């Protein structure tokens, strides 16, 4: 599973960082940044889905 972040769409709601801090960090401006290259480690698939389905701006997507 891979997780993708569209930085143009991110408005800094920080839901992903709250729900999946293993996959997302935030910068000094509160904008989301991916940790690593987007490969979701085993066991974190649910957190990745949770982050994607709680982004109000639809900035996060998931591919298999």
């Amino acid at each position, binding site marked *: 599973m891979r997780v993708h972040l569209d930085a143009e769409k991110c*408005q*800094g*709601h*920080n*839901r992903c*960082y*709250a*729900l999946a801090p293993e996959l997302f960090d*935030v*910068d*000094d*401006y*509160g904008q989301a940044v991916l940790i690593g290259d987007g490969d979701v480690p085993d066991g974190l698939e649910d957190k990745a889905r*949770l982050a994607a*389905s*709680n*982004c*109000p*701006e*639809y900035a996060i997507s998931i591919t298999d």
Partner: protein
Amino acid sequence: MTDTVENKQTAPEPIIGPSPEGTELWEREPYDAEDYGEVADYRTDFDHAWPGYNPNAPEVWKELRESGCPVAHTDRYGGMWAPITHDTVHEVAYDTDNFTSRSVVVSTLRPGELSLPAPIGVAPPISSDPPFHGVARRLLLPPFAPKKIAPWEPEVHALCQRLLDQMGDIEPGETVVDAALQYAQHIPVNIIGRMLGFPEEDEDLFREFVHNTLERINQDPRERQVDDEKRLDLYIERQVQDHIENPRDDLTSYLLEAEIDGNKLQPEHVTGSIILLLIAGIDTTWSAIGSSLWHLAQNPDDLDRLVNEPELMDFAIEEFLRAYAPVTMARLVAKDNDFHGCPMKKDDWVLLPFPAANRDPKQFEDSDKFVIDREENRHAAFGLGIHRCLGSNLARLELRVAVQEFIARFPKFELAGDTRWSVGQIRGPRELPVRILETA
């Protein structure tokens, strides 16, 4: 004693006419709120400041949706539209070409071009449009980023505990406390005042400023003028001057030291941003805390689950924010446009009721039901698009800690009388009597 009449600030007479250029305040025709009585049909006479609206807002939105009316209208305020579906609210929020943020609080008068120091607006960045908006916003983002807000958590816990202690001896089954007046309203004002570096004893003044700005919108601004000592602009000028003389580690000094392209901010930018932080930070979060406790007071099953399953808290907080979002924003139409068949004219008001969008069944399953562990929750409580609430991380922290501390102290409580709701764009309980049934 002072003569309040002589001490009043003299506001300019508004210009009457169709969208005059180069004016301060204007209105299309002389406006008298008393010409408008009770709202009979929200489709054609929508009024968010009608006292019956906030207590019954979810029913109003449901009726509008079910009657096939995604965008309501009214002649009040010189002409206002109210999109109420998620799609239409989303569309207006994203369309900064057709809708300007020059004024985000609906009023009987409209701000003309001279009333705002362009491109700053009265309270940047909320009142700014692109491209200046991005510059002003970028300045304010760092102090409100998650890692800068998290260290305030122990302070919020201590404040909430102090407020609960101040309620005195509690006799379970007997004692009634006002969860809005004795608790919710004190939390955000204390924290934002301290972040700005303003004296804690001025909290009552801040609340009065907010009331003036947000709840008295049906009064002519000329009649809303207040004594000099209660004027927000003069108060902030004094605080800013004090910070210029005695810089310290707080938000006011941060703004005074901030630069855009190597230049310090213009004085009206600094004071405008402080006004924004004070007003936006106070009764919004107070409303969210109050509504959440209002819900728990009437839903003992949800209260029990939250007490016994603390791991639900983060989901519950988002669901409180979805179901009881406090903030409706507004825009002015920037140019004539056809919005889904609605002939919008330049300078019409457009409400942005994010709370209504959050109840849209097309966007949320069981949208009128409070689901404490709702896992998919893309709610719009903090807005959508470039004006997403800057203070959302602080608001979430305050809301979560306020609920945690209240239910830790009072694991059972119920409504004990009439709830009084706010009037206007910020929706929440202003009086919330609850009877404490059990103490920890």
